[in-house]
């Protein structure tokens, strides 16, 4: 079996990651904007910035926590490394490096999406256009993912691409849940919380799935349980981790070196952490701490992959 240059494994991993990240950022901006419309401008844009730990970077004296400023910062600002535009540029550079390993269609699609995004201006994040802009980003990312599903050879580059995508998706789900944890708290105002849940679930395309699985009387901890542990929901953290583990097993089977201890340790730690969740109350501060820990374990897994495969 032909072996994969280590550097290309890293490119494939980050290609998957950046596409997934771009999609999720657009989802989060969109849901916050939708919430703002429902609540006549009461949306909390600061919490979005806090969610990505960008309070310091955002506060340059010129920006305010308004829909337009925050949306611009996260969708279009080239100087913000966490923006969709920067993420798509990164995705494209990673794709460029492995153009010989991905399908022509994947490259052409990403290239076209990126070239179109280049022409975007502040107009795209004004309130009348924002929902449409977010929807386009989400669609662009999903189109790419669909093309990858249909054309990307199931070799090693694909396995690393999948690992990047799945770890990023798990991470983003914990962040969406985190952004809502205060509002999901049972102590909070009921109607507000319910509007927020709905928006939150819609942000991860989980609204109907959740309604389908849980009764009308379900509470905030049910949403958390759903986003973390549902067996059928593709963005649920546990399902992402389970799929990532399958990819790791495929790699193991292909490699003469077999199992990599740092990766195995990170995987076990992640699974162990996930198993402790159901025993606790998934609300309030406890939930926040738990999500923090999950994010840390996901970070450790990334580091272990880099150590074992990318150098």
């Amino acid at each position: 079996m032909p072996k994969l240059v280590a550097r290309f494994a890293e490119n494939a991993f980050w290609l998957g990651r950046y596409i997934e990240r771009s999609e999720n950022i657009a989802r989060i901006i969109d849901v916050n904007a939708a919430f703002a419309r429902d609540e006549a401008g009461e949306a909390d844009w600061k919490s979005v910035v806090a969610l990505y730990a960008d309070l310091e970077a955002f506060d340059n004296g010129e920006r305010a926590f308004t829909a337009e400023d925050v949306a611009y910062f996260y969708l279009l600002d080239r100087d913000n490394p966490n923006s969709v535009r920067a993420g798509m540029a990164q995705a494209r550079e990673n794709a460029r490096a492995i153009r010989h390993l991905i399908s022509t269609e994947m490259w052409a699609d990403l290239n076209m999406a990126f070239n179109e995004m280049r022409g975007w201006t502040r107009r795209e994040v004004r309130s009348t256009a924002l929902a449409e802009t977010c929807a386009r980003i989400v669609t662009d990312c999903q189109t790419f993912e669909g093309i990858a599903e249909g054309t990307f050879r199931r070799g090693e580059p694909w396995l690393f691409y999948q690992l990047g995508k799945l770890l990023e998706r798990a991470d983003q789900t914990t962040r969406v849940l985190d952004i809502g944890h205060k509002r999901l708290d049972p102590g909070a105002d009921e109607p507000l919380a319910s509007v927020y849940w709905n928006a939150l679930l819609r942000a991860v395309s989980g609204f109907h799935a959740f309604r389908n699985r849980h009764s009308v009387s379900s509470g905030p901890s049910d949403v958390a349980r759903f986003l973390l542990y549902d067996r059928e929901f593709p963005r649920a953290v546990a399902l992402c981790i389970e799929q990532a583990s399958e990819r790791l097993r495929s790699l193991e089977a292909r490699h003469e070196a077999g199992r990599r201890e740092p990766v195995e340790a990170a995987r076990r730690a992640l699974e162990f952490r996930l198993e402790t969740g159901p025993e606790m109350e998934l609300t309030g501060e406890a939930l926040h701490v738990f999500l923090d820990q999950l994010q840390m374990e996901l970070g450790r897994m990334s580091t272990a992959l880099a150590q074992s495969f990318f150098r």
Partner: protein
Amino acid sequence: MRTSETSASPAGLFEGYDSGGYFCELFGGDAGGRTLPSALVERLQRLELRALKRRAKDASQQLMDLGITFTVYSDRDTIDRVLPFDPIPRILSRTDWDQIERGVKQRVAAINAFLDDVYNDGKILRDGAIPAELIKANKHYLKAMEGFHPPGGVYAHIAGIDLVRDGSGEFRVLEDNARTPSGVSYVVENRHLMMRAFPDLAEGVGIANVDDYGARLMQALSALAPGGMRDPCVALLSPGVFNSAYFEHVFLAREMGATLVEGRDLVVQDDCVFMRTTDGLERVDVIYRRIDDDFLDPQAFRSDSMLGAPGLFAAYKKGHVTLANAPGAGVADDKAVYAYMPRIIEYYLGEDPIIANVDTHICREPEGLAYTLDHLDQLVTKPVGESGGYGVVIGPRASNRELAALRRQLKADPSNYISQPMVDLSVSPTLAGAGIGPRHVDLRPFAVTGRDTWVLPGGLTRVAMRKGSLVVNSSQGGGSKDTWVLA
């Protein structure tokens, strides 16, 4: 399709087209001299300008969409540029091609024999057929290659021989490229583009296929793997994404089925070359390198190179890895050595050149310098060490001030220059501005040498998109055309 051949005159799409006294690739010269299938010429003439423009625009959009671009990086942005594509093909008859193919093979054979001689016995230098100091003091001469015979005696595995057609319709060699000639990806991509944009144009014509370049190259390089091993690991060594030709490196790696690597992916242990993979180190047997000699190996050459791999050259000298092209091959494509190519061909092959050089005055020789200084305003003067059209002064088009500056430079450093008469480069009908106009073209056929030499039918036709311009280099605003070799 009817195969009767006529020398047609401009009509239809080409109504009012005037080649301006130059030899035209479609209609020939004043005395005719062009014989292409009349049905094909008629088909081209039936094209409508508006439709042609629309399809050309679509084609160039496709290039952008597919990212068939060369990329320029600035501090905060990547700028993708498309090599302008002209939709009117450049057509070579079977007779044209037979001569080109034989001429290019002859040239490549002479280049390889010459390189093996100068790095080993040095007979040609002792016999005085070419001045020894021209070779030994050449900046591309690699002393480290002395006494070494590369596998199969091949130095220039991939060669690009730049041809032009003069006013009388004769092909001439303008330049040899024996190091890392680029542009072959455009030959293949232009064909794909052409067949998508104009599927009706080529129908039933019978055009030589260019699709198997990657497979041919892979085959040729594999055949020269160390120890004649079967199924060697072949890697293409690229300087990386910041190189403007990165698209071509990716293209070739994919077409060849080779692994694309950068210097940082390679590691040399016990004089063997390995690449870092996700599953440990993997032995590399053949490297098609797209980086210059200087940067190949910081231990052997430039110590500040970040592009190569330390120890690579030692592994090569031990015969543990095959490099294509061989280090030091550049001494054969030097513009000063070019002037001696007819003598080199005669010396090794005992043949006259099948394709003649452009007449060349060597300024390192007193007569050459004197002639050049006397006729500066009529000659094209070229620095020998440059490529990509840089530093070329076209006498009849230069200002007095430019000529005065050139005169000073020539006197200060004569051996850095050659001069040639103005060649009336042939023209090809090209979509330009409001209609169709004559634009100057050249041709770079690509020769691949393993156990024997194969020439990709056609090659890259570069076209000077600016009216009257003779500079076809992509770095100077040149474009390209699909090149058809008729079956």
